């Protein structure tokens, strides 16, 4: 689960990380008032969306007057901000963060992830701040420093000082950076984060270290015990169909093809998409109905898949382990009765209670196209699409 930059900064500020003074608003007059309150003569106006690379699309601007604050805020609010991470349609900007501009002397990168290789929380730092860290890691791997944290010990002071020294900090700034790293780690641990990035971490003209941009994402499996983070969720930043799917216990991701997919299990769902692609088709979505799929759940899966107007055919591929084919079959028949489904449906059932599932579909009288196995299913999907074309 992702949160906005201003939320991340508020959170980190609470843990003692220095961030610029600033406030968020969704209205132009407020933006000017905020800038006046902050004082100074330069401000940064930053569009708040859940995507990186905002500067490239005009979502981050430095204003040298209150008029510019007004103008930039006006430009940004309501715009579809396109960044390398949003896709071509961009993302609607509803709020901006207005901050005091800082006098930057040098920029660093500081991040924290759960590293799959070490299976531990790992701090990542680089003297090449403000840049794409993956790019730095590729072109100049020596400039990316990693330090894994022993979960039984926590982030040790010496580890922080080691990182600080290796990215080139000296004197008093080593202990200042160490304090900031400890604060970040504490937040990461206590809030069940999966990723934290401070980029850039800036050394200012007056010598202070400050998090100029910050991004965090959190473990959705832990939200039951993190009510404060749960409240920060912004549904406007998420695909409405995906939100609805999650509410029904389904895992749905929209793609740009025309073959709707309803599958159980994430791995088989991906393999089903791959099989369709292998046969020259294009999947319209990823959808995992999960374990224990009730007839209602199957019905909801159909409803969500069919909200996508590009869907011309649906492939249902169920290999039941903890699921049962007869429940799935009942769900399919129920969906056909309840919903106005005009696209052809190819069904492949296997596993637990498969002998009870197929007769239910047959007896229903609906024109399900039955497939024997995965390859057969994709072949029938393509043949049916071709026949209709």
């Amino acid at each position, binding site marked *: 689960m992702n949160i906005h930059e201003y939320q991340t900064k508020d959170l980190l500020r609470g843990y003692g990380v220095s961030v610029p003074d600033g406030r968020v608003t969704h209205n132009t007059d407020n933006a000017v008032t905020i800038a006046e309150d902050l004082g100074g003569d330069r401000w940064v106006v930053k569009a708040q969306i859940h995507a990186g690379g905002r500067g490239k699309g005009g979502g981050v601007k430095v204003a040298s007057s209150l008029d510019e604050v007004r103008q930039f805020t006006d430009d940004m609010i309501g715009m579809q901000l396109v960044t390398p991470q949003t896709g071509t349609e961009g993302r609607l900007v509803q709020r901006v963060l207005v901050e005091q501009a800082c006098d930057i002397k040098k920029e660093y990168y500081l991040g924290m992830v759960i590293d799959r290789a070490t299976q531990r929380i790992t701090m990542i730092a680089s003297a090449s701040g403000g840049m794409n860290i993956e790019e730095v890691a590729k072109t100049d791997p020596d400039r990316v420093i990693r330090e894994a944290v022993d979960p039984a010990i926590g982030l040790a002071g010496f580890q922080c000082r080691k990182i600080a020294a290796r990215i080139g900090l000296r004197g008093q700034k080593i202990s200042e950076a160490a304090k900031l790293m400890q604060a970040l780690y504490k937040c990461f641990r206590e809030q069940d984060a999966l990723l934290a990035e401070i980029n850039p971490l800036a050394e200012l003209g007056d010598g202070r270290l400050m998090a100029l941009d910050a991004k965090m994402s959190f473990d959705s499996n832990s939200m039951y015990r993190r009510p404060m983070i749960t409240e920060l969720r912004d549904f406007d930043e998420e695909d409405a169909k995906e939100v609805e799917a999650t509410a029904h216990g389904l895992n749905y991701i929209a793609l740009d093809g025309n073959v709707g997919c309803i599958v159980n299990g994430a791995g088989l769902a991906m393999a089903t998409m*791959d099989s369709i692609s292998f046969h020259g088709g294009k999947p319209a979505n990823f959808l995992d109905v999960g374990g224990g799929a009730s007839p209602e759940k199957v019905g909801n899966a159909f409803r969500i898949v069919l909200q996508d107007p590009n869907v011309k055919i649906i492939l249902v591929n169920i290999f039941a382990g903890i699921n049962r084919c007869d429940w799935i079959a009942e769900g399919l028949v129920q969906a056909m009765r309840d919903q106005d489904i005009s696209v052809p449906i190819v069904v492949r059932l296997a596993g637990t209670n498969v002998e009870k599932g197929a007769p239910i579909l047959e007896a229903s009288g609906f024109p399900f196209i039955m497939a024997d196995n995965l390859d057969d299913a994709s072949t029938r999907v393509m043949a049916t699409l071709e026949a209709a074309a």
Partner: protein
Amino acid sequence: MSVFVHKHSRVIIQGFTGQHATFHAEESMQNGTTVVGGVTPGKGGQEHLGLPVFDTVHQAVAETGADVSGIFVPPPFAADAIMEALEAGVGVVVVIADGIPVQDMVRVKRYASDKNAVIIGPNTPGIITPDACKVGIMPSHIYSPGRIGVVSRSGTLNYEAVQQMSELGMGQTTSVGIGGDPVNGTDFVTVLRAFEEDPETEAVIMIGEIGGPQEVDAARWAKQNMSKPVVGFVAGVSAPPGRRMGHAGAIISGEADTANAKMDLMEELGVHVVRNPALIGETAQRVFS
């Protein structure tokens, strides 16, 4: 032989009296698994499925001599249950729960680092040595005893591969689901090593997914250490980058994470890579005969 679980394995179920645990414990017993009891805190002293229920794993192990535990407790309590099993000296811990907080697993792995135990999962259908021992939720009837080891991240894709094998008359020594989470108990390398050391296993099918380095690490390990052939598939060729595909681990976060990049590297390292998921069985048959 087989790997990790055998016909002499003595299995307990943690969260024994729950609905899924009950259903699958019964199914396992019908298929030859020796379940010796279970644990549900607060229900110690009762009987369930004709077997004793204990309050703690410690008691269960002392009374029954259990050496394998299947953990069916809900995700918020799973990490504690795993550590309880490890502390009690259980050698193989199978964790079915899907949705354990990642940082809980980070701590569990640290706790496990000085215990001589194997953790299978979490977020796994479990492990099965056909007709001898099943700890998990997979449909037993699609598996049959044979000479091929199967290891996968995904559950249902494991079933898919096994079904394709069965249709061609190939059985399994053991099938292991290592689970779809980014921090998990046992990685591919550990399972490959076990299959390499198992005299009955003649070949291995390894089924991966987008995200993370472990399939390629495993292929690299296999090139240097394995005498047995490995057939490999990685799901998610059609998955877009940056989107989490159901499993917490299935997300493309860098170029090396894509399914094609992984399969290309695996191929270079000598794995017999299958590009079409419908041909896992056929490829295995061709390679192994």
